[in-house]
C-alpha cells in the first residue's frame, strides 16, 4: 500500500504530528496524472453561469452521483476536513480566513464537481491547490462533506439566526491576593 492511500488514524501524539509533516511532504510528490483514470477529477468544470451565445454548463461528472449524499463518504470527508486543516480556515462551516461553506452561497459553483475542482485547483483569493497532494478519492470525500453542509438534509440548515450565547453568569473566583483577580472597582 503506497503512502498516499494510508488512512490517517486518530491517536494523537506529537510524534504523530511530526509524522504528518513527512506525510504531507510525501503526498506532495504524487503527481495527479499517476492516479487511476477513474479517479481523475473534472478539472474543466465551469465556474461561471455565463455562456456567450447561449449554452449550458459542461455535463456533470459521473462521479457526482457516486459521492453526493453518500453518508459513508461524507463521514470520511468530515474526518479529512479536520485532518488536512480545512477547519482552520472554514471552521465547522461558518468560515474564518476562508468563506463560509454552510450558507449555500458558492463563489465558484456549488455543484459537487465544482466544489471538487475548487479544492483540487485552489482559488485565487487564498484557497490552496490540493491536486497532487491528496488522493483524488479523498478530495471527492471532502467535497461531499462540504456539499452536505448546506444540503437540504443537513442539520445545519433551516435555523434562524441564533441569539448570542448567554454571558458567563458566574463571577470569577475570589482573588487569592488583594487586587489580582477580579475587575477592580
Amino acid at each position, binding site marked *: 500500500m503506497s503512502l498516499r492511500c494510508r488512512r*490517517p488514524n*486518530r491517536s*494523537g*501524539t*506529537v510524534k*504523530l*504530528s*511530526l509524522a*504528518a*509533516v513527512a*506525510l*504531507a511532504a510525501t503526498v506532495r510528490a504524487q503527481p495527479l496524472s499517476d492516479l487511476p483514470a477513474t479517479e481523475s477529477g473534472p478539472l474543466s468544470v465551469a465556474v461561471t453561469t455565463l455562456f456567450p451565445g447561449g449554452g449550458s454548463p459542461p455535463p456533470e461528472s459521473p462521479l457526482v452521483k457516486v459521492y453526493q449524499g453518500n453518508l459513508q463518504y461524507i463521514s470520511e470527508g468530515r474526518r479529512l476536513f*479536520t*485532518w*488536512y*486543516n480545512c477547519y*482552520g*480556515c472554514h*471552521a*465547522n*462551516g*461558518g*468560515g*474564518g*480566513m*476562508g*468563506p*463560509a461553506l*454552510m*450558507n449555500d*452561497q458558492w463563489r465558484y459553483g456549488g455543484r459537487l464537481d465544482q466544489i471538487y475542482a475548487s479544492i483540487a485547483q485552489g482559488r*485565487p*483569493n*487564498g*484557497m*490552496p491547490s490540493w491536486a497532487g497532494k491528496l488522493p483524488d478519492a479523498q478530495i471527492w470525500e471532502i467535497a461531499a462533506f462540504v456539499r452536505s453542509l448546506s444540503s437540504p438534509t443537513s442539520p*445545519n440548515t433551516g435555523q434562524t*439566526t*441564533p*441569539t*448570542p*450565547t*448567554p*454571558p*458567563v*453568569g*458566574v*463571577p*470569577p*473566583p475570589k*482573588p*487569592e*491576593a488583594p*487586587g*489580582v*483577580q*477580579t*475587575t*477592580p*472597582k
Partner: protein
Amino acid sequence: MTPAMWRLTYTRCAERAAAALVTAALALVPAIAAEQAPAPPASAAPKDDGQWTMPAKNYAATRFSELDQINGGNVANLRVEFTFSTGVNRGQEAAPLVVNNTMYIVTPYPNILFALDLTKPGAPLKWEYQPHPAVASQGVACCDVVNRGATFWDGKIIYNTLDGDTIAVDAGSGEEIWRTKLGDINRGETITMAPLVVKGKVLVGNSGGEFGVRGWITALDANNGKLVWKAFHTGPDKDVLIGSDFHPYYDSDKAQDLGVKTWPPQAWMIGGGTVWGWIAYDPDLNLIYYGTGNPGPWNQEQRPGDNKWTAGIFARDPDTGAAKWFYQTFPHDEHDYDSVNEIILLDMPVDGQTRKVLIRPDRDGYLYVIDRATGKVLSADAYGPVNSTKRIDLKTGRPILNPEKETRLGQTVRDICPTASGTKDWEPSAFSPRTGLIYIPHANLCMDWENIQVNYISGTPYVGANVKMKAGPGGNRGVLTAWDPVKRKAVWEDKEDLPVWSGALVTAGDLVFYGTMEGWFKAVDAKSGELKWQFKTGSGIIGQPVAYRGPDGREYIAILSGVGGWAGAIVAGDLDPKDPTAALGFVGAVPDLKQKTTPGGTLYVFAVPPS
C-alpha cells in the same frame, strides 16, 4: 559609573530639583506630588509638533496629543470636516499619519497608500501607491486582512504588505524607494504590524502564529531596505541573538538554547512566537521593547515545555539586535495569549521610589508593570475578569494556572476567561500625563475550548482547537477602562455592548477618543469617563484615532471607519453566524454583528468650526 551615566544622572537630578523648585514656588501641591506623577521619559516623548508621524505618536507609545483646542467646553461642536473613501471594505486598523500638511493612509489588503493634501479644501488626493501584494496572501491571514499602519522617517513612508514585503515610498512624490521581501506566504507568513524606525533601522516582525511559522523580528536599513539583523523567537541562542549581554531577571530564562530545549524535538521550527504587535523604544537605555506571539499549535498537549521564547517580552539593543532581557508572560501558553500588545514607557513611583517601567495591558488579563532596565515584574493586576489563572507569582514571574481551566484533548472546558483574543487584543491604549491614567480599550469575553489533534502542513492553519467565545460577566462585551498605574486600580469604566476593538487617543483637552464596532466615534471626559460627544460613522470602528494641527492652525481628529479584524471578521468576511466556532471562535461572541453594522472603509476627519 561612566561619565555618560554620571551626566545622565546629574541632568535628571537637576531636572527634578528644578521641577520641585517650581512646584514649591507655586505652593499649590507638595513637591513630592510633582515627582510622583507618572510621565513618559522626555527622550521617548518629545514635545508635540502637531504632526502624527508614527502610529503610537512617540517611542514611549503614549498616544497623547498636546493639542487642547478641542476640549470639554467645545467638543459638542465637533463636526465632520472631510471624508475619504479608501475603496477597501475590510477591517481598517491603521492610524492615519500627518506629516508636512499631508495625510497618509494605508488600507487593509491590497495595502494601498494614499496621500491627501491638507492645505486644500476637502483634502484632495495627492497621489496613491499600489504595491499589488499577492492575492493568495488573503488566505493565510488569520484574522481579516488588516494592516496596522505606516511610519514616517526621513522623507519616507515605510509600511508592510500582507504578503510579507516592507516598502519605503517617497513621502513627497509617492515613488517607491525600496522594497524588501521578508515573508513567505507558502509557509503561512504574512505581515500586518506597523513598523517602527529606530536610529535609521526599520523594525519589522512577521505574523502567522496560527500557521506554524517561526516568529522573528528584523531590522532593515531605512535608506536602502538591506537587512541589518534578524532575531528568531525559537531555536538555538545564536538564532535568537542571545549572547553574553543577555541578563534575564528570572531563573527560568537562564540556560543555554532554551528555544530548543523547552520544546519537543524539532517542534520549535514550527513553534510561532511572531511579532505582529507593537514596539517601543527607550533612547536613554538604548533598548527596544516588544512582545512575541503565541506558541503553535494552540493545542498545548502537542508541545510540552515552556516553549521559549514565545508569549513574552524582549528587550534588545536596536543597533545589533542583541537580547538584553526576556520575560515570559505565559510560559507554555494554553489559551492563545499572545504577548504582543502595546508597551507604554513611563517613569513613575513604585513603593515610594521612581522607577523606569514599562506598562503592558496583556492578553492574559493582567496589567504588568515591569522594570524596563531589568525585566523584573513589579506588579501584575487583573483589569478584567480572569479565571484561567489565579494570579501572577511575582517571585518567579510565572502565572499560577487554574487547573479547572487547563485545556484538554477531546474535552470541552467551559467558561474560560479571558478568551483567546484576550482581555485585550491588538487595540492600543493611551496615556495622559495630565491625568496620570492609562485608557485601555478592551473586551469582556469568555470561551469554551476543546483541543483537537492537528497536523502540520505548511501553508495551512496549525491551530488544533475548537473555540466558542461568548460575553463575559455582566453581558457587556466591551469596556474602556481608565487605569491608575500608581494606585493599581481602575478609576472608571465605560461599558460597551460590543468588544472595543479600536485604539484610544487622549488629548491635552482632557478628552479620550475611541470607536465602537457599531460605528460610533466617541469623545469622553478623561477624568470621569462621561460621554461628551459622539458621531455615527458608516461602519464599525476598529482603527486608531489621531490628533493633529492643520495648516489653518486648528486641531483635527481623524479616524478610519471600517469593521473587521478578528472581532469583525463575521461582517468583513461574510461569515455564517450559525457556526459559533467561525473566525477561530469569535463569531460565537458576536453572532448579532451583521444586524448592527456593514462593511466599510472611510476616513473621517473632525474639527470644531472656527468661531
